[in-house]
């Protein structure tokens, strides 16, 4: 597809240039219009050709295995706690948030000293500290918006993430973010991750804890902007899989 559009672009460009040369030589108006049109559309075809596209099924297959592994580890360790997205400053870093899953159901945040050691398995409090699945996605959001989320507030995300999701990255057809105190409701329509989200739902300890890469990326963006720990409170997907509704909570320190 990409190659054929490139070839057509070059052919149009060639015929357009020839037509323009002949029109100047014979002083022919119609030939000049044809030449102008062909040259312009040829150049345009080459300019607007798509960047590399991949099928969404390939995207799902690539991401699912790592999510399954994470789910298996948590299930095997019998950790019951809800995943807590920790800001990078807890790890004495500027970037690179972590997600902490406590062994018990209570919401407990490990001390900075414990986290700064960058161990996967923590002893006090007992739990597991992992790199969240959406970390690189959120870095991509920052690159695309040319903004450091650590230097913006939640309103910035509320105003700019919908455009990024719909227009720039074409991740979803619609995105709504509602902020009420420390609760954030996110509604995503027709996401390219909908099949992955459906599959991830079958895995224990993923959707309502760590979240799929998309929900995880939003959690990290919120953590980065708020500078406070965030948890995924609820995560619902409609029956047809078209709408994903996630509810996040900012934990006050």
């Amino acid at each position, binding site marked *: 597809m990409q190659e054929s559009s490139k070839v057509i672009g070059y052919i149009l460009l060639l015929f357009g240039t020839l037509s323009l040369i002949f029109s100047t030589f014979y002083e022919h108006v119609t030939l000049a219009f044809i030449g*102008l049109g062909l040259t312009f559309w040829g150049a345009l075809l080459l300019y607007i050709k798509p960047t590399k596209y991949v099928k969404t099924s390939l995207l799902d297959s690539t991401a699912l295995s790592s999510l399954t592994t994470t789910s298996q580890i948590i299930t095997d360790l019998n950790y019951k706690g809800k995943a807590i997205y920790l800001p990078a400053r807890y790890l004495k870093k500027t970037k690179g948030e972590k997600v902490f899953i406590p062994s018990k159901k209570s919401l407990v945040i490990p001390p900075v000293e414990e986290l700064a050691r960058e161990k996967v398995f923590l002893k006090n409090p007992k739990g597991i500290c992992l790199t969240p699945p959406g970390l690189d996605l959120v870095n991509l959001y920052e690159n695309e918006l040319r903004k450091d989320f650590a230097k913006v507030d939640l309103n910035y995300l509320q105003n700019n993430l919908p455009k990024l999701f719909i227009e720039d990255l074409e991740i979803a057809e619609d995105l709504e973010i509602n902020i009420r105190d420390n609760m954030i409701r996110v509604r995503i329509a027709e996401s390219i991750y909908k099949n992955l989200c459906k599959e991830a739902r079958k895995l224990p300890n993923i959707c309502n804890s760590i979240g799929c890469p998309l929900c995880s990326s939003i959690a990290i963006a919120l953590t980065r902007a708020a500078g406070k720990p965030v948890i995924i409170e609820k995560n619902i997907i409609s029956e047809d899989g078209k709408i994903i509704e996630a509810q996040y909570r900012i934990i006050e320190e």
Partner: protein
Amino acid sequence: MQFPLSFWDLSLWLAVTAIILLVTSELISPYYGKTNILVNKKRLRQTALTIGILFLITVAIRIYGIITSI
């Protein structure tokens, strides 16, 4: 040997091209759910706006010409 199109011919061509591109750009906008068309929509919109602005510049030149000729 001379390029056969005048300034006004080019202005007309710019107007027609700008309309086609602006309408296309609007119709395939992701806001209408047409996310399956494999073109760089951002670049298409930029081109449409550039051509539109170029046409407006030719109009401005024409208006300036009319005003100064009175």
